[in-house]
């Protein structure tokens, strides 16, 4: 209802007139007609589902005495799953109700495994429960829809079909042609005919709301019984975040290997090569011996060795910053001090989070400060770490804003890492700034 009014006030030049027009047209909107259709097919679907339920339970119950009963019941549960999926699809198409699919059926190996999995399939049993409860709910929806729509149409068109009614005499002998209400009340005068017409219009206007109201029950049933259970939704979330964590660590290992291969390893080969050449230059038996060249070679090898050391140190710090061992607070102080943009630091940390959380918080802070320095054009940044029920890290800057999670950017990587520990990432960065990024992590 609120959606309708808000649309009319925002679009109509005359808000009240617009709202009334909208209200009068409600019975003829796509949504109302789709809901009517859903309510009408509810009856055959509910009946078919109920018959299926009875037949499945009855036959497999009868046959339980033989061996065929159990596999039959398992198959019936699987069928119920299918009917549940069909219902979800109909509700999505006609009611716009989006309910996630429950976890797919994953049978154990072998025929016996399949039967056991089928009999223990929670989704199947819940779908059966839906079929059972759908019977009264579906019948009610059908009756409400028929009552409102049929009576309203009958009332509105009454004047047109009254002449075809048979005439009849009332108790005092008067002759009437018209619908009879009560003992002696006939709708055969114009005021009465108009009143019936008005009643039909009122019913018509009320019909979409009545149908929508009665369908709430079915919506609740679908959400409750045909979607994933809370625990299965949780399992899916965990599976997803585990996959992210595995991908993330594989990608990091690969990057470390690349950095080693292209950096320190290559430099050390060069060092060995130059020292090898120098060694030959220093060979007293060699006629080519050349002290000056040897000195130059040792010089460049020395420089290469020092560069290799720097690269190794950076790489090691990228794997695990040693400063984290002394606590997240001092690690963040180091980060802030190293930033090219001045950072105002505020750390309020009563107890240490687990090492994994500290590491993620540290890399988030590092990545966010790097972004500030690289992309924001900011002159001033803030870094705040507070501890409540969650560990909250906030990095803000007075730069250009417009930061967002791209497909493969640093922020996307952060978001994935944060998700692996059930954390949250929130970015407020309107164009023109300022930017405030909030990371919330559990303590362990």
């Amino acid at each position, binding site marked *: 209802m609120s959606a309708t009014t808000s649309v009319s006030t925002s679009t109509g030049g005359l808000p009240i007139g617009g709202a009334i027009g909208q209200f009068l047209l409600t019975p003829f909107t796509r949504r109302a007609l789709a809901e009517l259709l859903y309510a009408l097919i509810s009856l055959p679907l509910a009946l078919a589902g109920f018959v299926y339920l009875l037949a499945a339970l009855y036959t497999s119950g009868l046959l339980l005495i033989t061996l065929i009963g159990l596999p039959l019941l398992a198959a019936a549960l699987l069928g119920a799953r299918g009917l549940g999926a069909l219902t979800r699809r109909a509700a999505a198409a006609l009611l716009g109700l989006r309910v996630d699919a429950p976890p797919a059926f994953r049978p154990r190996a072998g025929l016996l495994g399949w039967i056991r999995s089928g009999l223990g399939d929670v989704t199947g049993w819940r779908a059966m429960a839906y079929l059972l409860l759908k019977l009264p709910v579906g019948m009610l929806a059908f009756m409400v829809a028929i009552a409102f729509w049929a009576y309203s149409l009958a009332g509105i068109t009454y004047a047109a079909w009254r002449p075809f009614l048979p005439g009849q005499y009332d108790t005092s002998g008067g002759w009437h042609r018209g619908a009879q209400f009560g003992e002696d009340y006939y709708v055969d005068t114009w005021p009465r005919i108009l009143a019936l017409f008005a009643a039909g219009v009122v019913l018509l206007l009320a019909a979409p709301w009545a149908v929508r109201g009665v369908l709430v029950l079915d919506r609740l049933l679908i959400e409750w019984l045909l979607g994933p259970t809370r625990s299965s939704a949780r399992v899916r979330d965990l599976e997803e975040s585990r996959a992210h964590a595995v991908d993330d660590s594989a990608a990091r290992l690969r990057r470390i290997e690349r950095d080693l291969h292209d950096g320190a390893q290559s430099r050390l080969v060069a060092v*060995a090569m130059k020292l090898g*050449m120098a060694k030959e230059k220093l060979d007293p038996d060699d006629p080519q011996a050349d002290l000056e060249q040897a000195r130059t070679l040792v010089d460049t090898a020395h420089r290469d060795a020092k560069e290799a050391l720097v690269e190794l140190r950076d790489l090691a710090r990228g794997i695990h910053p040693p400063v984290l061992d002394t606590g997240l607070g001092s690690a963040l102080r180091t980060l802030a001090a190293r930033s090219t943009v001045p950072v105002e630091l505020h750390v309020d940390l009563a107890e240490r989070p687990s090492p994994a959380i500290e590491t993620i918080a540290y890399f988030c802070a590092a990545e966010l400060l790097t972004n500030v320095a690289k992309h924001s054009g900011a002159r001033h940044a803030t870094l705040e770490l507070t501890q409540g029920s969650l560990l909250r890290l906030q990095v803000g800057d007075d730069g250009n804003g417009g930061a967002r999670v791209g497909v493969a950017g640093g922020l996307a990587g952060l978001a994935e890492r944060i998700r692996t520990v059930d954390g949250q990432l929130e970015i407020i960065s309107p164009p023109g700034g300022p930017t405030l990024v909030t990371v919330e992590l559990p303590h362990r």
Partner: protein
Amino acid sequence: MRIVIAEDSAVLRDGLVALLADRRHEVVAAVADGDALRAAVAEHRPDVAVVDIRMPPTHTDEGLRAAIALRRDHPGVGVLVFSQYVETQYAAELLASRSDGVGYLLKDRVADVSDFISALTRIAAGETVLDPEVVTQLLGASRRADALATLTPREREVLGLMAEGRSNAAIAKTLFLTDGSVEKHVTNIFAKLGLPPSEGDNRRVLAVLQYLDS
């Protein structure tokens, strides 16, 4: 020798150029990826090409692919594949068509300048040079470990050097043996492994490798 170098790390590429120039070899081209390597070899027809395995764009094995293509398109050009790791699988692919004028060495070997230069010279002359590391891996992985177990420690040493492509004379020098005793070891090895004796270093290497890899 006229040499083409393909190596994406600038510090190593420059180092190699300096090292070879110092030994009075001519580096006719120094490039950083496989396509440029193939173009340079077609243009300059060098005696030998030194090829890094991991190069742009994918940084996986494009050097190896380029080396295999070179051996197909330019049979006269020796190819030294050069890497920070050795993989027996790569060695097998490299030697699949034929085993002359090809080498596969760890980058570490460049530290012993004379050995490295001599390996290059041997490859340019059509011989085969395999890194001792490859040979060790093959020896360790061979499915005929039972037959290998019958070799004496000295015979294993000789076999390793044979697999690296050394001649009997070179083996004798390395192990401080007389030529005659090396020959005796080689005959024993062939007999124990059931390999027909044959002429020439390369066929020896190939025979040994085929045996080890089977």
